[in-house]
């Protein structure tokens, strides 16, 4: 159940250029790939949402890129410091009837893909994670294949041929998710995308993080998402 929790920081260090790994020990019992937590940052009006990159026995891992005051605040927290967060929030990736999955992470979008990969492995579902970074200094470990500089999408046709996926999961900038979805539609492959938006409440109430769906309805990224079927989103 979603709750406001106080956890303890077990690890908070830079693992790639401007990219940090934060591990929180908590009383969370269950959290799945696609879901996120929102962290209280002192003197900020809004909490900051982060996809879960790993979960093991109450330990939640998130990856974050230094962007503004919120992430700078988190960066300065030390091991054993308390951290205030809401969790678990949002929905999860769907892997019903999936036999082979392609995972695409663009930049820090790799975070939920790592957790998804772990869950797919556990279920014995064949998968391949390709991730893209601006340069080698930014690379986060854990992918099957890494693209540096260019776009992960440049490789998508080759990878699809190799993996023959029945679904593509992706997380990254909106433009990447849109192109992944278009590729999926063209090639008749299902897509699920994990989206990001500035949020306020984190529980679907304030309607601040709305995206529009093709059926004309609004959906909140924080509660109805962050995971959406790519072809349901009005891009």
């Amino acid at each position, binding site marked *: *159940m*979603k*709750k*406001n929790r106080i956890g303890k920081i077990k690890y908070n260090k830079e693992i790639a250029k401007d990219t940090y790994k934060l591990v929180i020990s908590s009383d969370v019992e269950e959290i799945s790939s696609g879901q996120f937590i929102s962290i*209280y940052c002192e003197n*900020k*009006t*809004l*909490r900051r949402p982060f996809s879960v990159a790993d979960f093991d026995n109450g330990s939640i891992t998130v990856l974050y890129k230094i962007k503004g005051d919120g992430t700078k605040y988190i960066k300065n927290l030390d091991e054993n410091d308390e951290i205030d967060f*809401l969790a678990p929030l949002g929905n999860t990736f769907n892997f019903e009837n999936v036999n082979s999955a392609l995972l695409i992470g663009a930049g820090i979008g790799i975070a939920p893909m790592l957790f998804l990969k772990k869950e797919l492995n556990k279920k014995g579902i064949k998968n391949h994670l390709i991730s893209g970074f601006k340069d080698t200094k930014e690379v986060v470990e854990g992918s099957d294949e890494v693209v540096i500089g260019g776009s992960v999408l440049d490789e998508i046709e080759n990878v699809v041929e190799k993996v023959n996926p029945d679904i593509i999961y992706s997380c990254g900038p909106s433009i990447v998710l849109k192109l992944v979805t278009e590729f999926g539609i063209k090639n008749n492959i299902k897509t699920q995308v994990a989206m990001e938006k*500035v*949020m*306020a*409440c*984190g*529980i*679907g*109430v*304030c*309607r*601040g*993080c*709305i995206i*529009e769906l093709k059926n004309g309805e*609004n959906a909140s990224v924080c509660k109805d998402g962050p995971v959406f079927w790519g072809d349901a989103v009005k891009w």
Partner: protein
Amino acid sequence: MVDLSVNLNGFELQNPIMTASGTYGYADEYNDLIDVSKLGAIVTKAISIEPKKGNSGERLFETYGGMINRIGLENLGIKEFISKKLPILKEKNINFVMNLAGSTVEDYIKAAEIAQNAEIKAIEVNVSCPNVKQGCLEFGTNPNSLGHLTNEIRKIYKGFLIIKLTPNVSDIESLAKSAEDNGADCISAINTLKGLGVKVEITPDKKIKKTFVQGGLSGRCIKPVALSMVRRIKSAVQIPIIGIGGIANIDDVLEFLTVGADAVQIGTENFCHPDVTIKLIKELDSVIDSLNLKSLDELKRKLRDE
């Protein structure tokens, strides 16, 4: 045992801590995080006659000490509120105020009729939404229009009638007075302040990227404006006042009570601290107890030095 209850001209609250419209959903949405039935009352998100999809594009912009929103009154519409949310509010014993928004006097009359027929105990009339292009803003800025609107609603609606005022006016006193003279039971103030969020970024390829979010500013930064408005309203009317604007801690609550508020609404702070309301209820209890007083009413008198 401290008595935190408030009787606002007939509308009873178990304590003066309410939640502000637009920040708390329609019913029990926050129940996973706190026990909503413990609050004085929640105020629903603004509800219009027909469902509304709200604005497209970016809706939020964080500022120093606050945030700007341009949700654009997205809501489920009054029929669905009555059929789906009202039963939850009743079943879970949540005291609530229905916030109404419209574009025309007729909209408000229709909504007031529905509220009356559904035996809704209290409504808050949003005459101050700054985020829709046409509509209710005029009611909030012109004392004659506001008086007419209040009067028309009053004719139909027999429950507790709150008029929520906008701070985006030069003469808040005459608006409050006009509402009172035309039958309002209570004033709530303030709604958000008009604000513009601007972000200028220089991209790696040396281009300028600009973002503009024009909407309503809320959060801690608006508290001094709200305090000033509440005090001015207090000088103009006899009916109770619900103070709103940047309340985040017990000191803020005491300040609003001091300048004339009889109850308060917590809005933006719920996003950061979902349990802030419950904390404030406990802390208010402690403050009253520490002063060897027995009730909120006694505290109010002491704060106002009456």
